[in-house]
């Protein structure tokens, strides 16, 4: 087997719970809840009209009014009421523009899973160069002809690309399931136009859009990944404190001495995963334009230089300072 692939496989074996089981469990819970909510259904009487809720979770309702089928979006009350016959004549882009909440629907799983991925990534990075020193297996790994550069870069690759890819796949899988579920369900409802309730075009467009967002996030977060890896390689115990305390100290020193907040703003831009130009949270607002914004920012390139330094320091620590 390829020497690089087996390193990735090793990470998946070691961190199976965080990297594979957790997204799968969350995906399964979402699927089960959706099915249960759909099966349970709900009837609502609004303005004297009898309304049947079919999906239960995603705020889409359909009802029959005087023999005419209509659909609408429900969010803290009915809004976006549309006549189905009218909607079929609209092109999807116009319809999404008129009903922004509709475009949010397929985005929700991506938003949920990428926040989950952020948390999983943090936990993974904090532990990946700490546990082999803690459980004393480090000398076994070091007895293999694998360089520390390969080792450390594999872990950075997992955090930057594999974990977001897992989140993207899980969210896409949920959306595909939901599309299928709604298609089947619509046959039992008064609305036989699942494409209106949940547009395939919107699903694909959202998936594509979040792919760009995830890639931009991966590049943007490299300095953060480098910092957490360094903490993981250097902490003798409680890596989380090693992660937070130096940063907190820097923020306090800057504020006390200079009275400014630059460091906290920089740290905040990574915690919030902010687009450097629009300041949108790239985990919430998707789009390929984030990549352009990230790559054209000075902070990104300074951050990449810092990542290289942090990764070098991490490798140096792994080669020269380790307990056994």
């Amino acid at each position, binding site marked *: *087997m390829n020497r690089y692939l*087996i390193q990735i496989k090793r990470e998946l074996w070691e961190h199976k719970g965080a990297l594979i089981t957790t997204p799968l469990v969350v995906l399964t819970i979402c699927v089960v809840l959706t099915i249960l909510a759909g099966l349970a259904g709900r009837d609502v009487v609004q303005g004297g009209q009898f309304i049947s809720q079919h999906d239960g979770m995603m705020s889409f309702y359909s009802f029959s009014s005087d023999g005419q089928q209509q659909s609408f979006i429900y969010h803290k009350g009915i809004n976006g009421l549309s006549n189905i016959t009218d909607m079929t004549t609209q092109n999807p882009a116009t319809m999404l523009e008129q009903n922004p909440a509709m475009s949010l629907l397929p985005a929700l799983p991506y938003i949920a899973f990428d926040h989950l991925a952020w948390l999983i990534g943090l936990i993974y990075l904090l532990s990946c160069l700490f546990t082999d020193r803690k459980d004393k297996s480090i*000398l076994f790994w070091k*007895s293999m*002809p694998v360089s520390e550069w390969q080792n450390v870069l594999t872990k950075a690759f997992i955090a930057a690309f594999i974990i977001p890819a897992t989140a993207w796949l899980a969210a896409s899988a949920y959306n595909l399931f939901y599309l299928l579920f709604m298609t089947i369900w619509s046959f039992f409802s008064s609305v036989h136009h699942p494409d209106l309730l949940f547009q395939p075009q919107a699903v694909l467009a959202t998936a594509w859009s979040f792919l760009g967002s995830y890639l931009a996030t991966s590049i943007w977060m490299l300095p953060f990944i480098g910092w957490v890896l360094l903490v993981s390689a250097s902490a003798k115990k409680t890596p989380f404190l090693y992660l937070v305390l130096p940063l907190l100290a820097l923020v306090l020193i800057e504020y006390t001495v200079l009275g400014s907040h630059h460091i906290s703003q920089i740290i905040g831009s990574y915690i919030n995963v902010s687009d450097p130009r629009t300041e949108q949270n790239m985990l919430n607002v998707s789009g390929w334009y984030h990549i352009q914004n990230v790559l054209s920012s000075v902070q990104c390139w300074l951050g990449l230089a810092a990542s290289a330094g942090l990764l070098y320091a991490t490798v140096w620590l792994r080669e020269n300072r380790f307990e056994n």
Partner: protein
Amino acid sequence: MKTTTNHAAIIEAQGLHKQYGDFKALNDVSFRVLPGRIVGLIGPNGAGKTSLLKGILGLSTLDGGLSVLGLKPMKERTKLLEQVSFIADTAILPSWLKVHQAIDYVAGVHPRFNREKAQAFLAKTTINPKSRIKALSKGMVTQLHLALVMAIDSKLLVLDEPTLGLDIMYRKQFYSSLLEDYFDEQKTILITTHQVEEVENLLTDVLFIDRGHLVLDSSMDDISQRFCQLSVSTEGRHQVLEAGFQPIYEETRLGGASLLFEGVDPETLAAFGKLHTPSIADLFVAKVSSANERRHDESTVSNMQWKEAGQ
């Protein structure tokens, strides 16, 4: 080792030093290890064994000249580890790993690993390939580790207290497997252990190290020629000393003494008592004690010279 041959040395150490603050872990250590040898690195705790092994394996820097298989261990560690395997008492296999995953991993990263050989070795044990390491006993973990290492066609195998904490059955199995299934003339083994008696019959060479100094570097053949141990009665002891023979170490035994000599013709001693080749343990104690006495004497002389200079 000191045996002169034309073979390229597996390990070539010249004037090695290692210092932690004021503590000298290694002090001017020089030796050569040739191919096809089983070398015992013997020394008490804190003698410098681990520092030396770490240096040989490229896990820490040593001052001085060190070449292992013609490579600089620290700079070329990854390349070196394609030809060097090691099992350390602290090299614990990760508890989350499954047995078949361990084989897959080593097969994936090591170009000289033979999967069939590892599986054949494991087939002789009761280890289930689907088990996690944490479900195995310490003996089984060592068997697994040994199976992985023996399936690697390495030129040098470094064993640092490999049988520590194992019961006698596993310890015996460990060394017999090592000799029967692994060792050949192309391979070299470097072992450190406190249980010297267990490896004594395996070794072809010994390196004694104490307080960072190499106190003996010899082949086992040389030992039997250079050293002899004489068991004598109390009266016999006086006669030996009166005859001008000076043992490097002596030990009182029930009704007599055991005297250890270096560089004395055994035939000249045979008349005084029973002669035999000293065990590694006895020789180690003798060499370390005499080296300590010598260092103590040198230190005393040096202190006196300083005092005189001060006056």
